[in-house]
């Protein structure tokens, strides 16, 4: 009887490979739980903090949720006063508003009876707070600083650069995949060669080229140098090689020009690969940092990343604005990731590019 019971239990819990519990199973979930905390936590904390008021951010120890102290208008005072719970000397509790604080003594007033003033030691009072999202962190920088302008610059760079990259990369990939011609091997080796030369080792001369074209402090100086990507050429070529040659031969029979074969036949068929490259290009361009930092020296041409960096490097950092703008800077990428995650992960897994 007992034996059959354990058999049934084994049958129900049997896994595909083996049926023994292993320490790695438990460890896996433990590891993943910590992972979620470590990977998500910081971003969650950024999000929550970005809704705190400037005063709320300086609070230590920090509160988890964005809380703001209640304020109240009191007769006879122009500005709203902050509300406190106060333990009076006789032990009773009162809600009082603070007029001013001198050292460790706070001058307070009862909002319902503004005539009488109290002098309260500050350790006897406690702030009254409520959950409040400080949306002004988001709206004020857009009006007061150039942040909207930075956003516009970033969008221009991202869109233009991606379009240029897609067109010239797909043209080169078409040339390298459809035709047999003299010097093809040389051209492919050439593309691999450019893969060996990252921008970090040619910063000075590329800056020199850019300044010869009068593109220092211009968005074109950011867009053009990275427009031709070897990874993009290879990704698209690899895909185009799989297209059936008969299609192209048939189009040639119909007297189509080479250019129209390229954009009417090959491009539409390569759409999956082009989509992957487009997503990557958008992410590269939106997040680009070192090169724009060198080229863009004036705040009118700053992109979001450069603007954020300038803002965080200021002597007195205005964290409440900085955090909100950081959220704005990561939002577009977060949206792309949420919708196109599969494209991105398969793109990376298959081509090893980032």
């Amino acid at each position, binding site marked *: 009887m007992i034996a059959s019971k354990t058999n049934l239990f084994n049958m129900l819990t049997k896994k*595909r*490979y*083996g049926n023994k519990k292993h320490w*790695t199973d438990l460890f*896996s979930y433990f590891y*993943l739980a910590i992972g*979620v905390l470590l*990977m998500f936590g*910081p*971003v969650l904390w*950024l999000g929550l903090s970005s809704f705190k008021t400037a005063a709320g951010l300086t609070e*230590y120890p920090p509160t988890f949720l964005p809380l703001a102290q209640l304020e109240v208008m009191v007769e006879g005072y122009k500005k709203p006063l902050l509300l406190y719970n106060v333990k009076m000397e006789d032990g009773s509790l009162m809600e009082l508003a603070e007029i001013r604080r001198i050292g460790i003594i706070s001058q307070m007033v009862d909002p319902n009876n503004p005539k009488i003033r109290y002098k309260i030691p500050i350790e006897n009072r406690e702030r009254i707070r409520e959950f409040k999202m400080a949306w002004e962190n988001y709206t004020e920088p857009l009006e007061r600083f150039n942040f909207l302008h930075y956003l516009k610059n970033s969008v221009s760079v991202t869109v233009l650069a991606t379009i240029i990259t897609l067109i*010239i*990369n797909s*043209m080169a990939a*078409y*040339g*390298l995949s*459809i035709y047999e*011609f003299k010097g093809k091997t040389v*051209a492919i080796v050439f593309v*691999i060669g*450019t893969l*060996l*030369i*990252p921008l*970090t*080792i*040619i*910063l*000075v*001369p*590329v800056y*020199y*080229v850019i300044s010869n074209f009068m593109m220092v402090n211009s968005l074109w100086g950011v867009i053009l*140098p990275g427009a*031709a990507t*070897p990874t993009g050429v290879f990704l698209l070529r690899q895909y185009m090689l799989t297209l059936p040659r008969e299609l192209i031969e048939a189009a040639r029979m119909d007297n189509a020009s*080479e*250019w129209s074969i390229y*954009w009417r036949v090959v491009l539409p068929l390569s759409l999956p690969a082009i989509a992957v490259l487009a997503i990557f290009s958008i992410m590269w361009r939106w997040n680009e*940092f*070192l090169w724009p*930092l*060198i080229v863009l020296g004036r705040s009118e041409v700053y992109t979001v*990343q450069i603007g*954020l*960096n300038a803002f*965080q490097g200021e002597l007195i950092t205005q964290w409440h604005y*900085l*955090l909100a703008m*950081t959220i704005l*800077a*990561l939002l577009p990428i*977060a949206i792309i*990731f949420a919708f196109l995650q599969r494209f991105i992960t398969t793109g*990376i*897994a298959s081509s*090893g590019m*980032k």
Partner: protein
Amino acid sequence: MLKKKIIYEIAEWPFRLLMSAIDVLMRPIQKIVGINGMPYIFLLPNFLFFGLFVIIPLGINLIFSFTGGTELYVENRPFVGDKQYQFIFDCENYFIPNSCNEDLFWRGVYNTITFVFFQVGFMVIFSLITALILNKKIIGRSFFRSVYFFPVLLSPVVVGVIWKWILLRNGLLNSFIENFGGSKVLFLTEPTWAMFWVVFVSIWAHMGFYTLIILAGLQAIPPNLYEAAEMDGTKRERIFWRITLPLLWSNLLVVIILALIKGVQTFDEIYVLTGGGPGTSTSLIVQYIYTTGFAAAGAVQNFGLAAAASMILGIVLLVLTLIQLYLGWSKEEKKQDI
């Protein structure tokens, strides 16, 4: 459905217009060069960009590194021979940066070595563990995969701000520490802690990418090998050491080299997080090039010295990349053998 189609057509319209316009230009060109000449036309724009922004600059970089002065325009720069290189390599003892003429460069070199050693080492280990776990049959696998992956997409500035905010003197981490009875630590202004956090944050930001590549390698291992081992009752530890690791090894080597190539070039997150500080304790080699060439506060922009340092970095990267390409090729060949 119809609505979707209309949207597509509106989005397509500018594309069609552009392409037809180029077509008008291309027809006479095709008449002149013939079909056999067309591939060159298709390659031209991309290769023009490569030439202008990669190949020619590489040549100019060499020229820059042999010239001095403060002018940007090459024709105004005096030729100084290998003076820039001599300046960099003028050391009494290469292992003590202080004994060097250009001690900042050597500090950058040693910081980079320290950084890359720990960053690549721990990142590959954690990526491997994560990939192994994500390769198991667990609940919510795709969710966990995106959790580990999403920081890869964040910009370095965003990553820097996020962690700076946590590591502040009155930040979240210090409040945890005080909560558990510790005392506040100045994470970003104590040299050892700053280096620790720079490595940590860099791993945090890039681990997902390598996890994904290793995961792809794991999934390429034929499942019948595992089935056979299970049937023989092989222990899991043994399966890992005898099947998984040997078959993953070539993939892992590529990952290590790729991480080295990227690690040596690290600049962005560190620049935002610590600015290379305190002092120069987290200033890596790319930051040295950047400050020397473009951003030395109050000092002249020393393009020649920056170019010479770039050439040295370039040689290191070239060696690493050639190893990577060699490994990639031998991996392909092995695949064909199977």
